[in-house]
């Protein structure tokens, strides 16, 4: 006869069977039984965060760095509502995650009980799917479904809400299913070979092609296929903020990032192209800029695993639904016996655009330029670190100046743009890849949204180097106010900042203040020498620096502002409508 277990034990056993290494969580009334069951095992390490949003971001960072699903455990009510921002962040960037939230006992659901919220209702629009477990016999199978849905197709977060009485009730031990088949969820449809052939034809005969690769190439583990595809063709490639690293930034075919803060050559090549090959990208508004002016002369091939991404923002000539790596393999095979266009005149044009050196910036004596900080970070880490970021100017500089040559090294909140993401994500990434240096590039605005996690980082000794680009402004807000609001700096300056060195020290970490450029490299070197310590580098940077190139709202790819041209900004009301 099978053993009798309570629901919490069945849940815990299911997580062990699934191979979960880490749970990021925070206890509370509705999950006490689950925490009690976790206490009896040592397969899974539980990371006790200081705020549930931190748990979700840490699980997210773990998932992005490792490719495995992140797991979150929170209590009912405020436990789950605090986690929602982190769940929405993961959803927007298609990150596999399973969130288990406690719920009030079944008989109290709907009664406005203490710490009750409709977790399934609140999270519905920011999860791939969610479940409310109503029957103890469904625990193991629901866990299996959740991990299956979270990790296959276009990945995403899946929430399981479990009422307390279900965790207490007893039942026979449940066998954790090794496989699951859902009639309503078939993520792996066969790839359309006719479309593959059409795409290959179009690609081979284009004269001004460009490959535009996105987060799908990273999440879909298609880096190898993307490299092969690009090199066989010898075509230029640009990558989105989410895609950086899938193709090496240092390679000669790479044009860097495209979009609002993309390079001149990448955006001009998109604008002038006759064939855009979109690989695991979704034509997001940060990438397309003004959609009416987007790629006016290009035929578009769009490869994506999610059919809803295709044709959503722009009309597509050759849609290709499927796993990015598999589709690329298919096209490579079909290209095998085809003659590919000679595109040297296109490269000549691109190299002219490149010669503008659009990421060039002016150094000033006595002032640390934020770009210099990222370049020095790159130098000191040999380009080998995992870099997480928060959201704002520092995020764009990190994306522009840290040249990522491998996927899963660049971890940032691209879709939702969540300030506070960087620090807990760095903690999660460090747990996933403990042997690799992890840096969190942040700003004094973003970091203050999650400083409490410094405490968690001490408890679990996750040694992260925090690179705080401290310009005493909410820099991206200030930049927009400078350009579009007549320099009326409404609420973008903080008059009282903590002493970050002391803050780090009070949490048991190392704090270093960097005020001179001459101190920058030695400070970074010292920080990375302290292998097992978290180091907070508070770097006082230029207050006035802006992110360039920039496509102002309402403009097209060919209408970028370059450094030194910022006096020319004017945007009509329609442009200002955009964010």
């Amino acid at each position, binding site marked *: 006869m099978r053993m009798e277990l309570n629901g919490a034990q069945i849940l815990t056993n299911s997580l062990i069977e699934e191979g979960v290494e880490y749970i990021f969580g925070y206890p509370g009334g509705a999950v006490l039984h689950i925490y009690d069951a976790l206490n009896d095992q040592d397969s899974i390490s539980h990371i006790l965060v200081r705020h549930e949003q931190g748990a979700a971001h840490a699980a997210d960072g773990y998932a992005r760095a490792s490719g495995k699903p992140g797991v979150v455990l929170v209590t009912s009510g405020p436990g789950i509502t605090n986690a929602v921002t982190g769940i929405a962040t993961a959803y927007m960037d298609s990150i596999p995650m399973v969130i288990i939230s406690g719920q009030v006992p079944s008989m109290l659901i709907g009664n406005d009980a203490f710490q009750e919220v409709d977790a399934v209702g609140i999270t*519905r629009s920011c999860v791939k799917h969610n479940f409310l477990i109503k029957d103890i016999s469904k625990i193991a199978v629901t866990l299996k479904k959740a991990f299956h*849905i979270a990790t296959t197709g276009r990945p995403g977060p899946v929430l399981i809400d479990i009422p307390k009485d279900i965790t207490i009730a007893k039942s026979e031990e449940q066998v954790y299913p090794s496989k699951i088949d*859902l*009639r*309503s969820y078939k993520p792996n449809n066969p790839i359309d070979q006719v479309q593959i052939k059409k795409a290959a034809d179009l690609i081979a005969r284009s004269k001004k092609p460009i490959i535009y690769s996105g987060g799908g190439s990273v999440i879909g583990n298609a880096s190898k296929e993307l490299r092969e595809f690009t090199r066989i063709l010898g075509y230029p490639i640009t990558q989105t903020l989410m895609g950086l690293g899938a193709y090496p930034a240092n390679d000669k075919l790479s044009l860097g990032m495209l979009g609002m803060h993309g390079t001149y050559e990448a955006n001009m090549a998109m604008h002038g192209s006759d064939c855009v090959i979109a690989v695991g990208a979704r034509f997001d508004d940060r990438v397309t800029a003004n959609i009416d002016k987007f790629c006016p002369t290009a035929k578009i091939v769009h490869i994506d695993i*999610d*059919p*809803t991404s295709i*044709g959503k923002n722009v*009309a597509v000539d050759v849609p290709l639904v499927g796993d990015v790596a598999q589709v690329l393999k298919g096209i490579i095979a079909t290209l095998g016996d085809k003659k590919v266009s000679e595109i040297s005149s296109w490269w000549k044009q691109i190299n002219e655009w490149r010669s503008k050196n659009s990421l060039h910036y002016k150094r000033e004596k006595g002032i640390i330029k934020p770009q210099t900080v990222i370049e020095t970070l790159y130098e000191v880490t040999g380009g080998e670190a995992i870099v997480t970021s928060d959201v704002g100017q520092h995020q764009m500089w990190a994306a522009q100046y840290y040249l990522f040559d491998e996927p899963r090294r660049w971890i940032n909140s691209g879709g939702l743009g969540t300030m506070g993401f960087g620090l807990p994500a760095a903690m999660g990434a460090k747990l996933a890849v403990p042997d690799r240096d992890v840096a969190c590039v942040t700003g004094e605005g973003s970091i203050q949204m999650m400083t409490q996690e410094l405490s968690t980082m001490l408890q679990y000794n996750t040694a992260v180097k925090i690179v705080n680009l401290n310009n005493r402004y909410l820099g991206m807000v200030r930049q927009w106010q400078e350009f579009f609001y007549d320099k009326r700096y409404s609420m973008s300056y903080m008059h009282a900042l903590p002493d970050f060195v002391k803050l780090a020290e009070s949490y048991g970490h190392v704090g270093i203040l960097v005020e001179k450029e001459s101190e920058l490299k030695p400070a970074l070197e010292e920080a990375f020498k302290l292998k097992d310590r978290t180091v907070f580098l508070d770097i006082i940077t230029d207050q006035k620096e802006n992110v360039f190139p920039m496509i102002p709202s309402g403009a097209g790819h060919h209408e970028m502002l370059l450094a030194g041209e910022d006096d020319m900004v004017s945007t009509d009301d329609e442009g200002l409508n955009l964010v």
Partner: protein
Amino acid sequence: MRHIISVMLENESGALSRVAGMFSARGFNIESLTVAPTNDETLSRLTVVSVGDDNIIEQIVKQLNKIIDVVEVTDLTSFEHIERELMLIKLNVSKANLTHIMKQIETFSGKIVDASDDTYTVELAGQSKNLDAFMEKIDQSLIIEISRTGVTGVIKGNK
């Protein structure tokens, strides 16, 4: 263009709100929506009428397919199909307007399903446009209230 989209849905709690929520979150319009059990007790059929150009309808169909609880989506409008809607309409009746009312009921094959001294409740089933026509033909001042089910439909023939 108006499309009738038929959705086979897992008969799970919350499945309906996933569909309704998707429409509102993505700004798609719903002209009518009906949902009821089918001969398979694990499935419900949901029929939604929406208006949009081809791109919008394509997105609606794709977004519906993406919902995990959705088993099958059919745009009935792209097939030969039967559509029906049921309406109950309560009317003021008096000697002066009885002939007018009876003529319209006859024309539209309506059925009086309830009567009081001064009211009739009429049942009408048919294509929505016929129900609309009845509502136009009848003297507006006589209408007390209307309850319509929204459209349901199936593909014609053996498909």
